[in-house]
């Protein structure tokens, strides 16, 4: 397992000056499935945008697939490796047909036409949209279908890691179940930010807990989510599907040790 995302001592302020992220350090390897949780305003979306190369002017270091996000070149190249699905799928749909929308990313990668078509077909199939959907207008689709088109548009770029921001916020339970199934079929490294902790349990192995821009826990999903004092302290609640035994055990184990920075030297 090699290191795909390395974030060290990351600080970021909103343009108006308020601190958004403070001293964030974590590493992510190929194949990891990470949930990003925390109360509203914790900085989850900001972190995802920053990893997507969309926010310059941070301090500390952030590298994705070897690209240094402190450099302009790095930020411009990162979309080749990292696919970002926005919270509101609508924000991401920019074309008049589903086909054009999914093809937009591959075309920007400069791929030849046959390869673009192959990728669009594969991406649409992977999110369970069939051929009849290709010529439909994205804005006329249901929230769940829009989300799927947004994911397909990113998957078609064949990223090494997928970042999803609140993918369930406008989905009903059926849409959520379908999304879990779709993500199961996408064997890809991922970071999913969500308030829906049962969804995180279903789709992630590891969890990062943010509060007020700081990383307050980083560990196995069941162990973090079952730690009732920790969850309550940060405005969250233990999902009701976790058993009493798990809660008891996690709480006894106490606060999770954060991975200490400085121990991972840069492999370069």
């Amino acid at each position, binding site marked *: 397992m090699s290191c795909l995302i390395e974030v060290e001592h990351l600080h970021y302020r909103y343009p108006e000056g308020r601190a958004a992220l403070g001293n964030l350090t974590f590493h992510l390897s190929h194949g990891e499935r990470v949930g990003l949780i925390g109360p509203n305003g914790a900085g989850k979306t900001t972190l995802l945008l920053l990893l997507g190369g969309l926010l310059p002017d941070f301090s500390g270091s952030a590298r994705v697939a070897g690209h240094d996000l402190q450099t302009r070149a790095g930020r411009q190249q990162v979309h080749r490796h990292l696919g970002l699905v926005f919270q509101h799928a609508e924000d991401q749909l920019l074309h*008049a047909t589903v086909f054009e929308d999914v093809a937009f990313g591959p075309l920007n990668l400069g791929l030849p036409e046959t390869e673009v078509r192959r990728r669009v077909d594969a991406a649409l199939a992977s999110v369970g949209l069939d051929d009849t959907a290709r010529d439909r207008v994205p804005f006329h689709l249901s929230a769940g279908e829009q989300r799927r088109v947004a994911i397909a548009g990113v998957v078609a770029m064949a990223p090494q890691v997928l970042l999803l921001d609140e993918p369930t916020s406008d989905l009903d339970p059926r849409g959520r179940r379908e999304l879990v199934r779709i993500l199961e079929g996408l064997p890809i490294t991922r970071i999913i930010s969500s308030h829906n902790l049962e969804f995180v349990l279903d789709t992630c192995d590891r969890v990062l807990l943010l509060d007020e821009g700081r990383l307050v826990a980083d560990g196995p999903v069941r162990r973090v989510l079952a730690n009732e004092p920790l969850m309550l302290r940060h405005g969250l609640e233990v999902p009701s599907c976790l058993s009493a035994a798990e809660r008891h055990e996690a709480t006894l184990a106490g606060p999770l040790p954060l991975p200490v920075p400085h121990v991972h030297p840069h492999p370069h």
Partner: protein
Amino acid sequence: MHLSDGILPVPVLAAGFVVAGALAAWGAAAWRDEETPRVAVFTAAFFAASLLHFKVPPTSVHLLFHGLLGVVLGRRALVALPVGLALQAALLGHGGLSTLGVNASVFGLAALAAHHAFRALTGTGRVTPFAAGALAAALGVALSAVAVMGLLWSVGEGFRLVAQYALIAHLPILGVEAVVTGFTVEFLRRVRPALLAGGCP
């Protein structure tokens, strides 16, 4: 391009307010409350277009979008344009409050022409929506450019060069605006055809 404060004589400014007022009154006839959001959105788009600058040395020009407003809003554009221009003058300092009437008249009449051109072109059935939108927008920009040139020309002989320059500076706007309006019209026709169905009752 907006006419700025300070250049035109008072009678022209006053005539501008009279004409713009009459156009707005006609444009607002039989207004239904349900229409307000649609007009507001395009007013906002008109406002925002002036933030899209590009350089034409020694000055910079920005998009206008009054052709698009005409195409989509029909005579409602005559209400949208003065409001958009007032907000541009107030919040951005584009144009001016004293020239509000003149600018609204110039853009309003050009928008109206664009609207009728678009209807006529699509009515023939031989022109693509892209081409109809692009030609209508080009006509709108060309007409307002000629009007601005004429007004500057009328100020005095010293303004001839400025007037010619104003005309030339409109050429890149005309090109960009025609293409962008064409694509926008095509997009709207596919996504929200009702928007293009007709300006107003």
